[in-house]
């Protein structure tokens, strides 16, 4: 455990207002299929954010009264999520708050586990550190991608 804070004073961004699904896209048709889309994915990410707030009290956040989520820290923005239901593919790009953040790998892995739990098995999950935002970008990407399924299961 590293003592002290890596980023003692993170910049807090206002939460973006969540887009709301205007109306049920298909009416009452019992058998119509609603594909997984970006919006739903974001909705699912709300939980990821909550899940990841546990990181906050380990590291970045000073004041326990204000539990910032990764969203508020702009570690993840909704634009950084790409979903393709037809090809069963999802890519998440996240941005660590500071360049030398040692939590980047942990955040990445948490995201990965969470996504594997909340997506059908047919999905390929791809998690990356945004280019140019982290000191050991390639190493980080490597280590996140390099985890085999079984390892993730143990996590």
């Amino acid at each position: 455990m590293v003592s002290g804070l890596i980023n003692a004073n993170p910049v807090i961004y206002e939460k973006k207002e969540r887009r709301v699904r205007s109306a049920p896209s298909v009416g009452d048709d019992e058998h119509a299929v609603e594909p997984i889309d970006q919006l739903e994915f974001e909705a699912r990410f709300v939980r990821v954010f909550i899940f990841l707030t546990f990181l906050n009290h380990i590291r970045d956040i000073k004041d326990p009264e204000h539990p910032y989520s990764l969203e508020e820290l702009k570690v993840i923005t909704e634009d950084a999520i790409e979903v393709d239901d037809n090809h069963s593919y999802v890519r998440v790009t996240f941005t660590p708050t500071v360049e030398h953040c040692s939590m980047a790998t942990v955040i990445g892995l948490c995201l990965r586990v969470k996504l594997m739990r909340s997506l059908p098995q047919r999905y390929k999950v791809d998690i990356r550190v945004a280019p140019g935002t982290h000191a050991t970008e390639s190493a980080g990407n490597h280590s996140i991608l390099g985890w085999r399924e079984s390892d993730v299961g143990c996590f």
Partner: protein
Amino acid sequence: MAEPSQLTQHIESFVDSSCSSTQQAASLDAIVSFVKNDVVTISSLVREMEMYLTTTDSIIRARGILLLGEALKCLSSKPLDAATIHSLMSFFKERLADWRALRGALVGCLALVKRKSGGMVTSSDAKGVAESFLQNLQVQSLGQHDRKLCFELMECLLEYYPHAVASLGDDLIYGICEAIDGEKDPQCLMLAFHIMEVLVQVFPDPCGPIESFASDLFGILSSYFPIHFTHPKAEEDVEVKRDDLSRALMLAFSSTPLFEPSVIPLLLEKLSSSLSSAKVDSLKYLSYCTSKYGAERIAKHAGVIWSSLKDAIFTSGQSFVLSLTPESLGGLGCQENEIAAEALALLEKVVIQNNDLFSSMIVGDEEINMVLNSITGCQSYNEIPLQSTQKLYSVGRILYVSVKASVASCSRIFQYFFSCLMESMGLPVVNGSGTCSFNDDCIISKRPNHGSLYLCVELLGACRDLVISSGDLASQCVSANETWCCLLQRFSTSLSKIFTSTLATSTDKPAHDADVYLGVKGLQILATFPGGYLLVSKSTCESILMTFVSIITVDFNKTLLWKLSVKALVQIGLFIHGSNESEKSMSYMDIVVQKIVSMISSDNHDIPFQLQLEAVSDIGTSGLQYMLKIVTGLQEVICANLAEVYVQGNVKSAKVIIHLLECYSNELLPWIQKYEVFDEVLLQFVVSIWNQIENCMAFPDGIFEKELLDATMKVMKLAVASCSVESQNIIIDKAYTVLSSSTFLSTKDSLSSLQAQLEELEDTQETDKFSSRDEWIHSLFTSVIIALHPQTRIPNIRTVLHFLMIVFLKGYVTAAQALGSLVNKLDLKTSGTEYSGGCTFEEAMDIIFGKNLGCSDHVPAGRSGITGYWSETGLTNLCLGAANSGLLKIHSIVGLAWIGKGLLMRGHEKVKDITIVFLECLQSNGRMGALPLEENNCNWDMRLSAMKCAADAFQVLMSDSELCLNRKFHAIIRPLYKQRFFSTIMPILQSLIIQSDSLLSRSMLYRAFANVVIGTPLIVILNDAKKLIPMVLDSLKLLSKDVLDKDIMYSLLLVLSGILTDKNGQEGVIENAHIIINYLIGFVTYPHKMLVRETTIQCLVAMSELPHTRIYPMRIQVLQAVSKALDDPKRAVRQEAVRCRQAWSVI
């Protein structure tokens, strides 16, 4: 006399600190009751305790004194003589110096000072206590509870003995300052603030000691403002809420005008705080202090107050948004936030208090004038930049509030700004009495800009609200020749023309929405000025009404304008109705109501029919007399159209009539039912419908439309239900007359022939249809029967019963419902001879169950384990398979179900026989099902659906029906009837299911079981949860096999989820955790209903809360099952699946 040893024992046990607190409390109670009952006197108690009160062991002494104090607290109503009180008081007073045993002394002092009867403390004693308090107590060095006691003591002294303590003078004030300074506990602070408030009242003399201490006192108080809890979460635990504390501090602040020089600057300074709660508090305090300190003192600060107020309103102005919905026409046009609302409230207060000063400041304010000058530059709403609009709206609110504050402020401010606005609109204010020469053309060429329109509407609205607020203000002001009245009188006509032209030139584009809203609102305000036609002339009012009506009839394409106009008319109608102005009411009736009614009847096809109906029903709600007119008009139209349908078979009329009937039953009838004044009108309507049918002997072919009949039946039911008993008597007589004229009854008139017909029906199983006319007659007749009061007298009830039996056996469910309603409401006690044609309840039951139809032979019911016999006759016979035709059998089961429901709801025993019939149906068919060889497939299907029908009869019994047998239709409902039925039927069903040997009948029994469980209130199910869960699961499994059962399966699943999520069901759930999970896993992929899958997964989530050891073994299975649901076609299911996986993967 109590034994002294007993008393000593109790004293010892209280003093002994090793005893538990409950023991101590018990011994205190015992001692108190000794004294209360005069077994022991106070003085003997004190003597007995002498050792404990004076011992040098401080712990025992503290306990001893506390005992005496607590005892006195409990004896507050016990009379004591003056000497005892004096000696006790001097004892406790001295003990205040004993810091080791302080608690008891404080409790004792408090108890004595608080005494109100039976001997009170003398003033000199009270003064002594106060002195001792000031000398000996270092309040801030004590613990929280002791501090609280100290403050309570001081509060009581100040409240009850103000003169005694006042003589202490400066010492008292100084001592209190010292005691309070630095206090942080909310509960103590509440007391401290109150002490401050009372302290000031103790020294009423403005030049007294308070004056010299005012700044010190305020120095202590001011440090608490604004109240702000640094640990917001802790606030929830404390009893004292922020608002209470804030209010207490406010009372302390405003307690004396002497604080004014320090308070007002502080509050004004805090207005610029970034904390919004501080701003709100400052404004609240300012409002309150304003009324307490008086006009003179506030006037000193007027300039600063006005500029701070203005700032507060302008900066919080982003919240002002014009909401353009029709609903907002009635109230304020803008939404306000808390700061703005408080600021405006303060503004109103200061304007009322100090009109001249503040009015001239508002009138002379540069910023407001600048806004006023700048608005003329921008034509439409969209051209104005956002910031300016907000400023504009803020100015609007300021003007509204200050004009509305008082007549004087209205005169001043309205006069100034209104003249400015009129000039900017091109209506020069010419002095003198000459009427304004208004030129239509000039207005149309120069469209008024949004800003002027808005401010105009605000000013007019403020004026109107001011006039409304007091009774005959309008006539007073007019007679006093107030300037604003003159202005208003002079310009009202021109203004109404301006507003009208705004509406006329606007289009349906969003750019014009704001102007349309303002135009409508302006006209509405002008039309709702109180005081007759004093301020706004009659012709103007009428032309406004005509404008709205013409919009409704012509401009239906402009959605917003149309909706706003209807709403405005409703508001105007409500106002006129409420203000009792007959002249206005008459013109409203003539111009609006008359026109709207004629619009409906005149067959005007320009306006969409739906909109016509909307306008009619909305405007009807504005007043009773208007509704009466509209209802009568609508009824005439309906009857006229009905006639066309009957005589000519006019299909178009039929369509129109369906809309009319729906509007009548959905919109108008619910409103009418609230008022109970329409009895006569409804009666006429119903009777005229019957008349029409009576007069028309032959219906043209092909005009019978199911939809039309259904709509008519619904109206008939609801209308009859809203009638009084007397009217219902007339209606049922009329209906019966028409019924007897139908071919059905007229050919076979007598009772016996009806019976013969019934028998014939049994024999031939003929299900021939009725003719169109007969079908109408009997359908409407059944509707009438369903809606009757229990007291209504049905003529020839025997014939009616027979008739209904025949109709329902032909497959008309409504007849069965009518029969159910009839047996539900039939008086149990009458002898049947009170009026001709009546009959007793028993007789009716005999007719229904056909005692006199066949021979009654007894069949034992031993098979089902039910003891007793029932007569297998008539209807029962039909149900149990005597009838060869399956269809007849199904009809009789359905009929029996409704009759059973009627009986069940009133709690009659006969329902038992009926349920036994159903159970026998479920089983006997199972028995026959074993011999399928003799039967062809068709028959087999019939039997199967008959069994299903019998199982679903339980659903009819248990569920609430919208169509009949509810409060609306005056059913007799015994409390808890469902619970009773549940507890009788459940054991029977359970044992039958266990005994059942055939698969089919078991599945049918499960179906019946499911229906009963679904209909029972959850709380009853929870009591039996343990026993019921396995059966619920089994029936779920059976139901999941057939697609057609998806709805009943869903309802049952909801019951299960209710059990899972409730605490009372937990025990049973834990016990059955494994099987529940196993079954639920099976339903995760149920293909036929999304809600079933969603609920199943929710149930699984609920299961994850159970004790770890019970559910952990199932974890892998659940996760696997739910992972399939992650790829479910439905979004909601996937969301739940994610939640479920999350819940189960962390256990």
